[in-house]
């Protein structure tokens, strides 16, 4: 064992604390798929977040100089437009960056909402027996709701109200996050509850109680870290799910308006310009790659966070 030799080499007190995350990372690195996924995901993130600072083409604006605009339509990939241009001459790369920012933001925020809700409900129902029945009924109830129709109905019926309150783009953003967040926390809650029930019976929780650690800190110190692994995995998969859901909603024309592109709505509009199928391939590829890499990262996380595997 390498760290044992390292430990003997260093004087007693100065054995640096080995953080949990260090271990996780070491294990994570062993998962080839996850590493590739992480690489692709980071590349995509850099592309979407930092890209616009380097690639400054306007994603929304159509060149009002009509002659120029006309010359720059439907161009194939080139140095000046690495992914080509769309049917009114907008740079597809710039649109992909903008769309990606929106898609990823929706994905991450909606997932955070879902994970937060799910963890909270799972913890409460797992730890406090009195709440368990009611909360699990609630979870079952939500699991039995037809989700995609519900999301569509929510965005359709309540979207306009939010758009009035926050403006069209922010309003759509909120309604999507609320709709997706509200409809995807259940799996996290179930996983967390199951884990909490199992962890709660472990003796170290009893030990903590015998020490006199209050419930609040037992949850945060002992239970939460030990259910974190599945939560993180569920969270990773939740991002994938949220991104797909957002793109489905946009694709069905219920999401953001056409000038505020997301990958889903780009795919939708490219569909109508099939003479140039590449215009459809880019956003589709972006969604697929993101989801695929997120799934792989989730897989790797699952392995890395499993202390049984890590211990070996």
């Amino acid at each position, binding site marked *: 064992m390498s760290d044992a030799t390292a*430990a*003997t080499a260093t004087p*007693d*007190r100065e*054995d*640096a*604390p*080995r953080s*949990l995350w260090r*271990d996780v990372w070491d294990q994570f690195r062993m998962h080839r798929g996850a590493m590739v996924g992480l690489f692709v995901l980071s590349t995509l993130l850099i592309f979407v977040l930092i890209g616009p600072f380097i690639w400054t083409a306007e994603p929304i604006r159509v060149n009002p100089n009509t002659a120029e605009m006309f010359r720059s339509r439907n161009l194939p990939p080139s140095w000046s437009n690495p992914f080509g241009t769309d049917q009114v001459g907008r740079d597809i790369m710039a649109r992909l960056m903008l769309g990606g920012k929106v898609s990823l933001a929706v994905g991450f925020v909606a997932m955070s909402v879902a994970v937060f809700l799910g963890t909270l409900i799972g913890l409460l129902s797992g730890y406090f027996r009195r709440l368990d029945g009611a909360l699990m009924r609630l979870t079952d109830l939500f699991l039995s709701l037809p989700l995609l129709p519900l999301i569509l109905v929510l965005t359709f019926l309540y979207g306009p109200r939010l758009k009035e309150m926050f403006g069209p783009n922010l309003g759509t953003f909120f309604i999507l996050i609320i709709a997706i967040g509200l409809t995807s926390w259940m799996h996290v809650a179930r996983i967390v509850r199951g884990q909490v029930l199992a962890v709660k019976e*472990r*003796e*170290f929780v*009893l*030990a*903590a*109680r*015998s*020490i*006199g*650690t*209050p419930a609040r*800190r037992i949850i945060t*110190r*002992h239970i939460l*870290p*030990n259910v*974190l692994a599945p939560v993180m995995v569920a969270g990773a998969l939740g991002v994938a799910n949220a991104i797909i859901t957002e793109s489905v909603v946009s694709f069905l024309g219920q999401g953001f308006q056409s000038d505020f592109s997301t990958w889903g709505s780009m795919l939708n509009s490219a569909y109508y310009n099939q003479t140039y199928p590449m215009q459809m391939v880019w956003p589709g590829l972006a969604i697929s790659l993101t989801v695929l890499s997120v799934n792989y990262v989730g897989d790797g996380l699952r392995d890395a966070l499993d*202390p049984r595997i*890590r*211990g070996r």
Partner: protein
Amino acid sequence: MPEPLVTVDDLKMHFPIYTGVFRRHTGDVKAVDGVSFSILPGETLGLVGESGCGKSTVGRALLRLYEPTAGRVVIDGDDVVSLPPEALRKKRPTMQMVFQDPQASLNPRMTLARIIGEPLDEHTDWPKAKKLERVYELMDQVGLNRRFANRYPHEFSGGQRQRIGIARALALNPKFIVCDEPIAALDVSIQAQVVNLLEDLQEKFGLTYLFISHDLSMVRHIADRVAVMYLGKIAELSPRDALYARPLHPYAEALLSAVNEPDPVRAQSRKRIILKGDVPSPANPPIGCNFCTRCPKVFDRCRVEKPALREVEPDRFVACHLFDNIVAGPTGAPEASEHNQQGVTQ
């Protein structure tokens, strides 16, 4: 005569059962059903019995890790059962526990230093350095290399983990420690080390133990007095030597007959009593004596009336109708053995 440090009075721990379509409360698992005993300061009380007889439950209910259904547990002057939450929290440093499974009782996501330091985090407002100093001190006391402070439990062997658990229990200078089968999950070679450590610590700090175990020889080694439990009740409570020499309760007798006798002569002369039948379900104990279904000396009364735990000889308490006509001497609380008396902190 010193006051007992721990007095348990008619402790009951029932777990409800819900059955049927409507999940009605149809009965209880009577894991602990009216247990009383007391432990003197510095004394070690062994609690033995088959697995499932409720001994671990007693230990946990004692420290109020379970909410007892009824009864009183006075530890160092306070009734633990009725303490309000905050007072209970304040009380916790006095009473600690060492758990059976050293693997399960340590949070796999915390380093050794944090595990041992947790009681300090909860009950002191010491600066970090002082806490760390105390952690190192505790590690020295249980024989753990200070270098290991930042490692995780999975990096240790079973014996080392149990030392961690002991160090954690010691952190707040408790008076009373419940050792809940602390050696059951360990290799035989390590068991002795841990038991010796416990004994050393008891000597050093004047600790009082409730030593729960199904290993009768280990109990014989460490305990001053021994309580034998059967199906949620104490069958016999006697000083160690008396019990091992001459068990009174038929169950204790059967149990002890199974202990390996180091002396081959005595071993030969001894008859192993094989009990027939199974332990009845604690959800549905017999009407009479809990042991009546398997007792070799059973008679009619046993099947209809539960025997009470009575002192039948000085310091010896038995719950058995066989001893009904024997009246014990006017002795009060049993005498504690002498060698643990020193070092009792007040």
